[in-house]
């Protein structure tokens, strides 16, 4: 085996299965895959790439795959198509070409940019692409080479590159003309994932292959299917075989590997893939009459390709799934930080009242939150407990917060605001999702208006005595026709209005007792800070973990100076 001059020509053209387009719009960048031809560009909504700029024509240009290359063709656009600043009618595209449509100062597209990242996989792949196999290489050597490639690649996660390498390596090993890798989709259909010819060019069209043989291979129990059309009369009449002059077609179903570890040490004597194993894709290779005969390719090679390619594809899929999960986690983390920013409380300062609040989260994202809004003569606070936990509760909490906040900022009457929020949520049919809340709004002269929607009754602490106004309404989001009424209290200087969530009153100790209202009232009457309430709560619970979020909000009327 000799590694010949590393021309890398194939790799330079396409590193993935298909070339990419990078769309640059201001600070934004988006990658598209050129996986079919023609690829349309224009202002019309049905284009593959829609650019919403009036200077872009509705049917602006096409990218076509022809003669093993890619061409851009202007479709008679009004303001022209530009490649690297030159207006063109039709031009072959090269890597890193800058394409512009109509406007020269806006959105542009980079054709198949060379990736900045150069990892070991990429380097290794470039070696593979440059491999030349001398004709006297024995089958065993070829096999060893293939297995070596397979092993090294097993550690990488670049599915497209792996598939292209599978196709390329298969072509080198079998000396066939074309190789296609198909992957099975969730719905059971086969999707063309990579296609290459012996010149190292990407093939993105599978209409010229024999789909009937592909289907046959998938349904047969054998490891591979070699079809020599010159030997088989009943095949000679099939459409694709006649139309495209196909001589030899080899089809290798890729089956989900059953045992991964055991086979590693004895690659050559690999047991045949179990015919019952799940099919995850197929490798299709063919040659035309005009080309060389590949029907005599060694069965050992085909068997090795069958097992190793399946292993590769499966591993690549696993890595890809992992990557998808990682990205999903990242998205969630971003969502969570946005949520936290939204929920961050900026307490406005007003001369006649002050507010403090504290939240103790027990597990994941909880459903408790509070916020405050000040308007000219009023200061309003609200505490909400959304039923449930996690992302669904967080979503509901954010929406609720926005609605309540904007109603308060617009100085809407409290009962009306709550009724509007209730209507909104019941009309959306969120399915048993609701929230309890207290909204309180105090005016400069100490008059406090509040509305309690299914929440633990608030506490009014006045001169060390505690009053619990029982007035209440239904929770928000449960019943469409619920009525809401607000109540009023007159506060004196130093009076405190305390609102807690049921996580506080229902906090349990080791004996299963609840913290209850009574304990809260006692500590609220004598304490001057929220810290003391939490200290009392902690000493009550002992080591028993909380099973709900605990939130306490306090509004103190400080009077007019």
């Amino acid at each position, binding site marked *: 085996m000799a590694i010949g001059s590393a021309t890398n020509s194939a790799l330079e053209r396409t590193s993935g299965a298909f070339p990419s387009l990078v769309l640059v719009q201001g600070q934004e960048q988006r990658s598209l895959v050129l996986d079919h031809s023609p690829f349309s560009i224009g202002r019309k909504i049905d284009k593959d790439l829609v650019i919403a700029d009036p200077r872009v024509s509705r049917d602006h240009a096409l990218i076509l795959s022809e003669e093993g290359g890619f061409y851009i063709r202007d479709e008679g656009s009004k303001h022209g198509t530009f490649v690297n600043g030159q207006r063109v009618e039709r031009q072959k595209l090269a890597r890193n070409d800058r394409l512009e449509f109509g406007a020269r100062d806006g959105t542009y597209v980079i054709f198949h940019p060379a990736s900045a990242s150069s990892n070991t996989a990429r380097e290794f792949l470039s070696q593979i692409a440059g491999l030349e196999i001398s004709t006297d290489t024995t089958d065993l050597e070829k096999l060893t080479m293939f297995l070596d490639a397979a092993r090294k690649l097993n550690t990488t996660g670049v599915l497209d590159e792996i598939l292209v390498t599978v196709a390329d390596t298969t072509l080198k090993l079998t000396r066939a003309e074309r190789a296609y890798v198909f992957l099975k989709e969730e719905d059971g259909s086969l999707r063309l994932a990579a296609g290459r010819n012996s010149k190292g060019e990407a093939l993105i069209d599978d209409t010229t292959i024999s789909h009937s043989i592909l289907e046959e291979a998938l349904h047969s129990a054998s490891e591979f299917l070699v079809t020599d059309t010159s030997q088989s009369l009943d095949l000679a009449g099939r459409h694709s075989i006649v139309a495209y002059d196909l001589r030899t077609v080899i089809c290798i179903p890729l089956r989900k590997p059953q045992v991964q570890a055991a086979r590693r040490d004895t690659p050559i004597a690999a047991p045949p893939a179990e015919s019952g194993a799940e099919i995850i894709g197929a490798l299709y290779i063919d040659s035309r009459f005009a080309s060389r005969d590949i029907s005599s390719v060694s069965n050992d090679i085909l068997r090795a390709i069958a097992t190793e390619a399946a292993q590769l594809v499966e591993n690549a899929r696993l890595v890809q799934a992992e990557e998808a999960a990682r990205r999903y986690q990242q998205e969630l983390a971003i969502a969570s930080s946005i949520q936290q920013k939204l929920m961050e409380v900026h307490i406005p300062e007003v001369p006649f009242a002050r507010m403090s609040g504290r939240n103790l989260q027990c597990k994941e994202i909880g459903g408790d939150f509070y916020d405050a809004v000040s308007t000219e003569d009023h200061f309003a606070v609200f505490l909400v*407990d959304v*039923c*449930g936990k996690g992302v669904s509760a967080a979503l509901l909490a954010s929406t609720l917060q926005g609605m309540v906040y904007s109603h308060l900022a617009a100085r809407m009457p409290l009962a009306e605001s709550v009724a509007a929020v209730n209507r909104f949520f019941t009309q959306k049919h969120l*399915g*048993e*999702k*609701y929230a*309890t809340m207290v909204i309180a709004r105090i005016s400069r002269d100490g008059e406090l208006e509040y509305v309690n929607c*299914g*929440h*633990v*009754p608030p506490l009014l602490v006045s001169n060390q005595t505690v009053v619990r106004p029982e007035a*209440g*309404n*239904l*929770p928000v989001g*449960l*019943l469409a026709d619920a009525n809401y009424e607000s109540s009023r209290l007159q506060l004196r200087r130093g009076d405190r209005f305390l609102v807690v969530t*049921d996580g506080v009153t229902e906090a349990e100790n080791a004996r299963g007792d609840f913290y209850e209202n009574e304990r809260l009232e006692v500590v609220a009457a004598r304490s001057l800070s929220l810290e003391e309430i939490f200290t009392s709560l902690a000493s009550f619970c002992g080591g028993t973990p909380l099973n709900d979020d605990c939130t306490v909000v306090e509004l103190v009327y400080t009077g007019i100076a």
Partner: protein
Amino acid sequence: MSLKMESKTTGGVTVVRCIGRIVFGEEASALRSTLKTILSTSKKILLDLSDVSYIDSGGLGTLVGVYSSARAAGADIKLTGLGQRVRDVLQITKLVTVFEVYDSEQKALAAFQ
């Protein structure tokens, strides 16, 4: 699962006795599906909550959800046997004003007639 349900029919009313906790998760789902099944054949349901030790916010949501859809379908659900905990929860959330609550099974059954 910490919720069991037993049902019997008395004078055209299906009495469903709930035993355990009505909480978010499989308990609430079980309650929902059981009542849905009963509602397909019976328009009068009495929920006996004497042996329900706890209802959490999710369980409460389910109870109201089932109640609303029953009402919309022309059926009637009444409650009886509210323990202190359940009574407190319904009181705090003012849902006691929504449900028809009776002190005893007898009184509830009479109210259906």
